[in-house]
């Protein structure tokens, strides 16, 4: 089997705190991999290490057959991936078109192609009307959309998306979902983190669940949960009793 992404005993410590603990990821080429976990479980830390935005404490990573620890291979890897990081990589003083032009030229996309791709992306993501705005003036959702546009622009083989739907309105969210599905269907790979389990369930072909830094589940969506929903399986793995009814003493019994 050919993997787009693999990690072996990937670990990251912050002082005495272990944020990611010996994670072994295996993401097949052409998969839509949903990476789930509760808040503070280590999802963003993992994605940062996979994309070269954070150095692992130990362990190894292979992205599209390249070892990011090797300077030359890291460059090859970066030319073939697209990333929407948790903390976005935008410049305050540029407009969307300027930022995308910069990203495209750094990927050596020919000028004519670049211009038409930018126009398409801005129109599709509803950013064209704010052409004169600087990114510092953007809302969080607009920034996410711009980051996604930048990630898609170089036509990558592998897309890393850290909470791409956060703060994005319903219309844009639908467009993004369709874009990502098409992207996967033509053979590219997506590695996505999201808190919205319904989206993951609807889009992803594979799922990994991380809890307290440890990868506790990794399987194709079809094999996961043996008949139950993703939410049930997730709550089971995370250790919360899905059947338990939350109560507040002064509000009374919710079931009563």
């Amino acid at each position, binding site marked *: 089997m050919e993997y787009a992404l693999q990690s072996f005993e990937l670990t990251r410590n912050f002082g005495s705190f272990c944020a990611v603990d010996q994670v072994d990821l295996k993401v097949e080429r052409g998969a839509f991999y949903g990476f789930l976990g509760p808040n503070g479980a280590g999802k963003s830390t993992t994605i940062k290490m996979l994309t*070269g935005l954070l150095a692992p404490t130990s362990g190894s990573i292979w992205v599209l057959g390249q070892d990011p620890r090797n300077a030359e291979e890291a460059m090859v890897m970066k030319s073939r991936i697209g990333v929407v990081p948790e903390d976005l*990589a935008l410049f*305050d003083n540029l407009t969307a078109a300027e930022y995308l032009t910069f990203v495209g030229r750094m990927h050596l996309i020919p000028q004519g192609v670049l211009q038409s791709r930018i126009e398409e992306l801005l129109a599709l993501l509803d950013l064209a009307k704010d052409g004169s705005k600087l990114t510092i003036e953007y809302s969080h959702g607009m920034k996410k959309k711009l980051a996604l546009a930048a990630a898609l622009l170089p036509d990558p083989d592998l897309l890393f998306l850290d909470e791409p739907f956060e703060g994005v309105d319903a219309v844009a969210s639908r467009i993004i979902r369709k874009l990502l599905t098409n992207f996967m269907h033509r053979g590219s790979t997506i590695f996505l983190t999201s808190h919205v389990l319904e989206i993951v369930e609807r889009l992803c072909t594979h799922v990994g669940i991380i809890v307290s830094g440890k990868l506790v589940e990794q399987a194709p969506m079809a094999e996961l949960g043996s008949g139950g929903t993703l939410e049930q399986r997730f709550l089971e793995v995370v250790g919360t009793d899905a059947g338990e009814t939350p109560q507040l003493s002064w509000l009374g019994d919710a079931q009563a």
Partner: protein
Amino acid sequence: MLWMRRRILVNRMRRSGKLSNVVFAGLIVLGALASIASFVFAFWFGVDELQESSPGVIMAVWLGISLLFAFFWFLGLLTELQRSDSMSFKNLLHLPISLGWVFLYNYFSSFLSISMVLFLPGMIGLSMAMVWNAGASMLLCFLLVLGYLGMVTAVTYQLRGWLAKMMEDKRRGRNIVMGLTFFIVVLAQVPNFLNMATSDERMERSMHEHQLIMKTLETKGAEKEAAQKELDAFQLQKAERAASQQRLINLATVSIPLGWLPYGVRASYEGRIWISLLCAFGMFALAGLSLRRSYRKTLAGVVDGGPVRDIAKQEDSRVKAGPRKPMLVERHLPWIGEQSSAMTLMALRALLRAPETKMMLLGPVIMLGLFGVMVSNNDLEGRLFWAPMMTLSAMAMSLLSLQQALQNQFGLDRDGFRAFLLSPVPRDIILLGKNLALVPLGIGVGLVALILVQVVLPQDITHFLGGIFQLLSAYMLVSLAGNFLSILWPMRLKGVGMKAAGGQGTAFLVHFLSILLVPIALAPLLIPWGAELYLDSLGWLGGAPVYLMLHIALFAAAFAFYRWCLKRQGALLQRRELHILETLTREG
């Protein structure tokens, strides 16, 4: 609410660590000592020096204090603007409480400032000295001081609220902070410029008076009489000038509210109690009006919501569709590759839009202004010999004032630095782009300095041309040093401006020391001048443009050195980029 404030303070101190808390405690002790010293000094000064003084002198002393306080208070406004209220209205609006006292709490919290710690005890001390010197009527000083502080703080609080409201639009907010900083820096430099511009005239007048006095002493008879007459006329003119200045000051103190404290003190000292009371009343009235208006505006602002968007402007920008001009970031630069071109133009575009750049340019403008005033006030004809030295000094001075950007290349990128990390681009290209983006500022300002020196001290054309090559070499050397500092000691900047965020002591120290070392690093660029002088002293020069030729040779050497270093610096950047990212984006 007070419990909540206390908890926030305690939690913040817990997070800050022991060293920070010790420093904080030290600052509080220092502040208390300064406060006591201010009180004691003001009281002593009032009793000892002002006991026999005229009302005019007393007013001048109070005028000085009140203007100094107003200036420092206004300086504090800049810091205040970048800090949220002690209790945010927005966090309390959903609670069933009256917000009036929250407003007052925030207003009185704004009193906790260095200006107040230093000036209030001093004003109290001086008021007590006034009572000591002139009796119970001077008790009005306390009322006047209270009114003055109330007026200044309330008006600035209103101004702060208004500016803070405008700053909710982030783009405008940055421009406001920069504009205010610009205004304050220029305001602080005004006395310097005035002093330098008028020092010659004052010196001349003083010399002339001295000569007249000497003449009256050294001559006899009719000559002495004529000299005496001339001296009397001169001194009369001087007295008239002083009286006219005094009238102007009186008029200003009566008509500008900032002068009501000194004018009220003077009136009280002269026994005009009603005038003094009127001054106090005027200041209290202004304070009350400002606070009332500020409260209403604050509430209205909170209830109305965020900034009003300029819909008309937005729609206007939509209409302007059509054949578009190529953007700056789309253009191509000659001699360098596609990626270097993109990097340079993107960085330049961002720099030109950043208000920080305009602020940064203020440094060289002030420096060149002072330099211009200085050289125009001196007879430099005999100093043509030193022209090459002055050229390099002016260049170094200009480049030094851009050091904040040169030696912290990625500081202004903030989160954008991630985009460099994710780019499939050799890191030397990123550095080259960064260096080239600063060329219009660095070389531009240096060229202005070069032309300025040429205008003041016209040199041989070969020297002027040599200066241009010298400037290019200097820029390359300074850029290389800046790259090293940017890679090894990057500094995180505050939200707005070029100021480094706290907790970066080592990097700050290294950056500061490196500024001191710049002149030494540029010293080799004086070799052509030294060589020319040496050859001239041996009589071997024979009109050859040695200065220019050596500078061209030095430029070639500097260029080769730059290219050699850049590759290595690129590799170093790649090794250090995660560390830089961590530094630039660390929170708190």
